[in-house]
């Protein structure tokens, strides 16, 4: 971790609702180029997601997994937003 103890502000949203929002230690997702893990301090990034799993590891270490259907991930300033058409 580049900035020790820093956290990611994560938003997982679909057109119909905000599915997950909060602080997390790590986010991993599958983009068109392969699996991608995001830790705090990650460089700004735009990525296109493919159908697959997005997992979010929150502050106390529990991992939540979502099945996403297409979508899009953006990272900037320790802020991760995942936009997808459906997630569950």
């Amino acid at each position: 971790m580049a900035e020790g103890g820093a956290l990611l502000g994560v938003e997982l949203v679909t057109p119909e609702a905000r599915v997950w929002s909060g602080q997390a230690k790590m986010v991993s997702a599958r983009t068109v180029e392969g699996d991608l893990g995001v830790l705090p301090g990650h460089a700004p990034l735009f990525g296109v997601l493919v159908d697959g799993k997005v997992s979010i590891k929150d502050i106390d270490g529990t991992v939540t997994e979502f099945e996403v259907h297409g979508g899009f991930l953006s990272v900037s300033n320790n802020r991760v937003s995942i936009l997808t058409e459906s997630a569950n």
Partner: protein
Amino acid sequence: MGAQLRVYRRRMRSVKATKKITKAMELISASRIVKAQQKVWASTPYANELTRAVSALATYSSTDHPLTTAEEDPQRAAVLIISADRGMAGAYSNNAIKEGEQLATLLRERGLQVRPYLVGRKAVNYYKFRNRDVAGTWTGFSDSPTYEDAKEVADALIKAFLADASSEDFGIDEIHIIYTEFQSMMTQNPLAKRMLPLEVVETDAPIPTGLLPMYEFEPDANRVLDALLPRYIAARIFNAMLQSAASEHAARRRAMKSATDNADDLIKSLTRLANAARQAEITQEISEIVGGADALASASAGSE
């Protein structure tokens, strides 16, 4: 019962039945406005995130994407009109359709051909009645549109947009949308907006200034835009549909409320008329009885 009184009572019964219906529709619409508003709110985070992403991308990358560049010599413009499936909502659908006519006139003045895309049975019927050419219609979900509905419309529009307008018949160079903005329970405005070529709408939260981060793109900026822009269009259409649905319910509630109030007034005046008719009947009966008794009394007085 006299004939006059019977006629009044019959009219009162029918007005009361109508009032029950309008009152019920008013209550249903009132409860649906709240639901529709909640849906609008639920869709805002997605729209905001998407807008942030699109504006960031438009600012930080210098790619030429067909969806962001304006055609130099536009030929055709699509006008997407969002109206209601059902009536009984006052001027709601009409206002949207009229806004569409105005926009079409403006576009024609600029020398563009107008291709109408219609959502909602009211707009479809309006165009069908006038025998106009329609490029696409969708009906059956104006009450509570889902994202899938919006996506279907968006896909059709984007497909037509990406097709070459000068060589293909269904190609379009501009996309405009007409929807009804939900301002409050009392105010809803029909609005016309240009969706494509893109004017990125800034949300209330501006992007922080200062050092702009250099974004990495995975796989590359163009492909990211490819994936992002259709979603952006779909999200905007979805938001427009949701706002229109909320507006539709609000307009219907207002129309049904005034219908209920009118029925109340009508019942009141009919009750007065019926009372007068009944009283006149009673007065007449009494005078007949008194007259009859008088005649009997004078007849029997003469015989004694």
